[in-house]
């Protein structure tokens, strides 16, 4: 892997490889000293142009568990917010010898621009670019699903035949995009559920099914229901009339929750709006994987960093 910018370009074998390495990394987490020397001497920069707590911390923990030197660079309040361009920042980081740059940026394509540019040689890892992609989130979601399905024997498996229903603001969601490409590459059947206002243009060209009616979609008995965060400001742009109406039609409330078979996985990438797209009852139920997702995020990001910086020639210690 040269960079990790998008899940669209990842092959099935590559994806399974990352997930398998993540299994190894997850074993490390259970050790007394959860640390590997693999990336000792490597400099990893966490370059965040957007507020994010969990993704930033998750990458930081992942890098530290691999013994890398981590610099977290929040663009807010730095020279970047005073007009320094992506190019200048990238050249500065290159001059400082960064081996990998984890970038989150409000503009779609920012990570791709960095990866293609001649400004910096470092490995680029996309931690979310605008409404384009968030590949490590999809990888951790796939990892979480695969573990719930296969337990300790998950290695080597795809997600063949698994039915995943993703509900919410698909149009503005980088999580949805990355999941659509990755989950379908791994063999899952994906259904997207949203009002037409929150579906991307030409979504029917995607390798998914599309539905407007959540109850109908849930009645089909999906293995996984993934709820996306809905942003209140969408209401003011007339994507939907009120929070109440959204919640009534597309929220996973307690009534809908009770109708789901007990082995259904309920996922959410966080942060959640409890009571809007997901009820507290749903979020905290044993069917919910929300906290597992966070823990698995570290393993998956360790795997991504490891594979980008070392490659898979070396064995994990």
């Amino acid at each position, binding site marked *: 892997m040269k960079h990790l910018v998008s899940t*669209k370009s990842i092959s099935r074998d590559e994806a399974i490889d990352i997930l398998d390495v993540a299994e190894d990394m997850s074993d490390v987490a259970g050790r007394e000293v959860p640390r590997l020397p693999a990336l000792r001497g490597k400099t990893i920069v966490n370059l965040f142009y957007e507020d994010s707590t969990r993704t930033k911390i998750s990458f930081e923990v992942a890098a530290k568990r691999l013994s890398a030197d981590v610099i977290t660079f929040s663009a807010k309040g730095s020279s970047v917010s005073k007009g320094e*361009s*992506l*190019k200048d920042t990238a050249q500065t980081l290159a001059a400082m010898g960064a081996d990998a740059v984890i970038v989150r*940026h*409000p*503009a*779609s*394509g*920012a990570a*791709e*621009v960095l990866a*293609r540019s001649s400004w910096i040689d470092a490995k680029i890892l996309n931690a979310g*670019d*605008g*409404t*384009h*992609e968030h590949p490590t989130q999809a990888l951790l979601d796939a990892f979480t699903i695969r573990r719930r399905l296969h337990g300790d024997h998950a290695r080597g498996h795809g997600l063949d035949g698994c039915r995943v229903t993703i509900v919410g603001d698909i149009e503005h969601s*980088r999580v949805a*995009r990355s999941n659509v490409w990755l989950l379908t590459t791994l063999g899952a059947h994906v259904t997207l559920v949203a009002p037409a206002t929150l579906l*991307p*243009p*030409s*979504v029917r*060209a*995607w390798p998914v099914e599309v539905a407007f009616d959540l109850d109908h979609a849930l009645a089909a008995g999906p293995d996984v229901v993934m709820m996306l965060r809905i942003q209140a400001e969408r209401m003011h742009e007339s994507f939907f009339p009120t929070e109440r109406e959204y919640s009534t039609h597309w929220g996973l409330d307690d009534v809908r929750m009770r109708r789901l078979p007990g082995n259904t996985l309920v996922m959410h990438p966080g942060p959640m709006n409890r009571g809007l797209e997901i009820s507290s009852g749903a979020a905290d139920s044993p069917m919910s994987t929300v906290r597992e997702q966070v823990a698995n995020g570290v393993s998956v990001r360790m795997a991504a960093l490891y594979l980008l910086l070392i490659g898979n020639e070396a064995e994990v210690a």
Partner: protein
Amino acid sequence: MSQRIIVRAVELVGSGAGGKGSTDILIADGVIAELGSRLSDAKATVIDADGLIALPGLVDLHTHLREPGFERSETVLSGSRAAAIGGFTAVHAMANTNPVADTVSVVEHVMSLGDSAGYVTVRPVGAVTVGLGGVRLAEIGAMARSRAKVRVFSDDGKCVSDAQLMRRALEYVATFGGVVAQHAQEPRLTEGAQMNEGRVSGELGLEGWPSVAEEAIIARDVLLAEFVGARLHVCHVSTAGSVDVVRWAKARGIPVTAEVTPHHLLLTEELASGYDANFKVNPPLRRSEDVAALRAGLADGTIDVIATDHAPHPQEVKDCAWADAAFGMVGLESALSVVQAALVDTEVLAWTDIARVLSSMPARIGHVEGYDRGIAAGAPAELTLVDPAARRDFEVGDLRGESVNSPFVGLRLPGRVMATIHAGNPTVLDGELVAAERVAAAATKSEGRGRG
């Protein structure tokens, strides 16, 4: 005093004769003195044009020269040089400068900068509304009656979206024999828009610029033009639906003309996939179906002219994330090659049609005198000699303006302008620009003869 030129053995295009075979052209005193075979003149400079075709000088109806105010991107001189190397002899300088070309002083200033540069006739476009603000009409009458004799009025870059104001603009501009050139973009439907709305924007997560935002304005405007009985020109038509609307309007007898850019005739939205902002333009690159419809629209006369929408920008506003980048592409230098690739080599149009859509029609819409007869004895000497057999890998080094934001760099393109003659003086010879001092000096000498 004045330069005498013999163009030897050129194939004529767009002349009244329209015949095949090669001709000599004698140019003297700024006009085409004689056409014929084996012309001789002891004092004349001879341009060997064997294998070249002669087109009437190209006229661009849509050029951003950026001066005054954005000289980092382009100046009237640098843009004129880009125009000349592309085979143009006249350009229309859009009004979105700083200050905006909404007063007599700005339009006369731009015109005189063009005159002293001498590479092309610079016809200023006047703003429709004060400061392109879309609220109050600019002093259209004053600009029309100024030395610059402005005939094309446009808020290009912005749409005159207020229907009442557009109605008034159509009527008022007609009062002075001019035309409103509308940048058709419904503003609310395109807030934050980054690229064509469709499959590619959905995947890339870029805010969509829906085709309906262009088509809805064109539909409204042709109905307004019909209702008030005024002429309308539609800038850079980019969608199949727009072509349909214009075709319908023309069939109904509405006095509308439309233009298309070279880039919309060749490039598609797929090029946005790598987030390279050199492909970011407004209106955006569309689908291949749209490209096909635009070509068909030119072939059946629905679209009247090709205009470059040459939009220079400094590198720093392209070398960044897509959403942070400016809209626009330079196009003067590559226009004829792109048109040859998209239309001539594909047999959509013949060279005589190219002479119409890139010279006589834009000149007629813009009221540029002297282009109605093409290359004929007695007509002003405005012509372009092209080698249609040439092939080149288009490079940054082929650009002559101040900016390098071309989407065609790296493409293999056919055809090359070998010579351009403006007001009887060569501005391009042997495929290279004539030096600025020589062109300016020749232009000063020609002053007395009036402008083409």
